[in-house]
């Protein structure tokens, strides 16, 4: 009982010792010229680069990157663990990532879309490079590999480039969602090519923005104006709103490409006490439903007697708009 307990303690102790030895072997270089030295050099350069300023800092940081890339490349070609199904070592993937970050990242964003897009291609090139050198270590010389190896390299490069293209395509469609945010208010279920990971938004936000910014401008044009003038205005409401809308869209949707896809129209309906003005913002861009969609805000315009103006101008207009906008799928009602 006791002896077995001791045995176990000794076993655990031995395990810890092995672990420490392994770590020591990993950290302490056996020779001065080894991959660990390069990694240390890179850490050292980074440390120094914080102390330096100006372009010297950049030069030191740059060499730090080179040391890191060379060090990892060396380490990972020493003991290759290959990706399943290919002959690409995991190490080439890591080195490729570092090279890609080094080439396309900058201080503000270490990871840019370009880094991700070029990663597979760079990793494939890094995998292929050793195949073009015969021999190992210091006695290597450039040589053209055997036919079979050449075929292998070409196939790997081809698929990696295709994966790079797919990644780029992902960034292209992601950019579409950013430039045309109203797309995300529709479902993508009919799409053959893409699936969506986030739930769809209820209403297109930019449509609401347009309507809410239009409202005070229209109120300003109608409120307290003589009734006869207002009626004249309502006859050409479509044109008036179109002009107002152009300015509003240009001002508020400046940063979106979708600004050209919104149109503004007016519908005037006779009601008992006056008129109802429907302001429509119509989406003319791509939509799941081929007839598109539109948003609507309704305003009630009525004549009231002008109290402080006793003369012949007997009535002025009053306007009251709905607080919320309605969202409709389908084509807008016909023009009058």
């Amino acid at each position, binding site marked *: 009982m006791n002896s077995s307990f001791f045995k176990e303690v000794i076993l655990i102790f031995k395990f810890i010792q092995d672990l420490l030895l392994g770590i020591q072997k990993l950290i302490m270089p056996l020779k001065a010229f080894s991959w660990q030295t390069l990694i240390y050099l890179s850490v050292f350069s980074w440390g120094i680069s914080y102390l330096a300023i100006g372009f010297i800092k950049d030069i030191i940081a740059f060499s730090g990157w080179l040391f890191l890339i060379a060090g990892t490349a060396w380490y990972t070609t020493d003991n290759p663990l290959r990706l399943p199904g290919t002959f690409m070592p995991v190490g080439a993937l890591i080195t490729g990532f570092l090279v890609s970050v080094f080439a396309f990242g900058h201080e503000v964003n270490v990871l840019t879309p370009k880094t991700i897009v070029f990663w597979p291609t760079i990793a494939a090139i890094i995998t292929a490079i050793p195949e073009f050198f015969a021999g190992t270590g210091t006695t290597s010389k450039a040589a053209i590999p055997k036919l079979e190896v050449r075929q292998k390299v070409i196939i790997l490069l081809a698929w990696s480039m295709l994966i790079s293209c797919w990644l780029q*395509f992902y960034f292209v469609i992601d950019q579409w969602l950013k430039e045309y945010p109203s797309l995300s208010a529709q479902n993508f279920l009919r799409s053959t090519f893409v699936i969506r990971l986030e739930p769809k938004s209820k209403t297109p936000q930019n449509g609401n923005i347009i309507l809410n910014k239009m409202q005070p401008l229209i109120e300003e044009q109608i409120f307290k104006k003589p009734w006869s003038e207002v009626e004249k205005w309502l006859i050409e409401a479509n044109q008036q709103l179109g002009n107002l809308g152009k300015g509003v869209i240009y001002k508020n949707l400046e940063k979106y490409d979708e600004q050209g896809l919104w149109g503004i129209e007016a519908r005037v309906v006779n009601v008992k006490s006056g008129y109802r003005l429907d302001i429509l913002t119509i989406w003319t861009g*791509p939509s799941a439903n081929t007839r598109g969609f539109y948003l609507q805000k309704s305003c009630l315009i009525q004549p009231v007697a002008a109290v402080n103006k006793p003369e012949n101008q007997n009535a002025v207009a009053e306007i009251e708009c709905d607080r919320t906008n309605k969202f409709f799928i389908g084509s807008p009602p016909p023009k009058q």
Partner: protein
Amino acid sequence: MPEELSLPRILPIGAMLFETLFLLVAISIEGYVLHRWLKFDKKTSIFYALAINVFSSVFGWNIFFLVEPRLDVKLKSELIGYIFFNNFKDPGTQSTIIFLASLIFLGTFLIKFLLLKVLIITLSEIGEKEEIETSQQQKSYRIEKMQLQNTNLITTTLIANSMSYTAITLILVIRNLSIGLK
């Protein structure tokens, strides 16, 4: 291109799966054609078919990435509508698609032929030193043989490309029919 990365909101899984399917179909058909007409052994012809197809689709993607930012809003919204919602707004787009498809067919045919030519040269002739020609007659015989091989290569690529396009078109037609039935 944007500079920041954000969490993915949308993934082009369908595009990737369809392209893989089309590539596998095209590679197997064209591999067979190359094996049959150009008398390569099976492994080599599959290799050639794979390389020309994958590289030509990489080439096609790059053209797409070059053209896409330059499209005007109208064409771009047709493209977005097709990719996100599987429909077109403008009925005129249909004929544009047919025109583009024939252009793409010709383009891939040319690219595949050039790729095949380059691959055959780089894979077979580098490393193996050519024998020194002794007589003039042998030289002219060689040139003639190369020309013969060239026309053979063109017709074979054309046949291979047409057959794989036919197969892919059939798959698309079946898919459209099954969607229509739903």
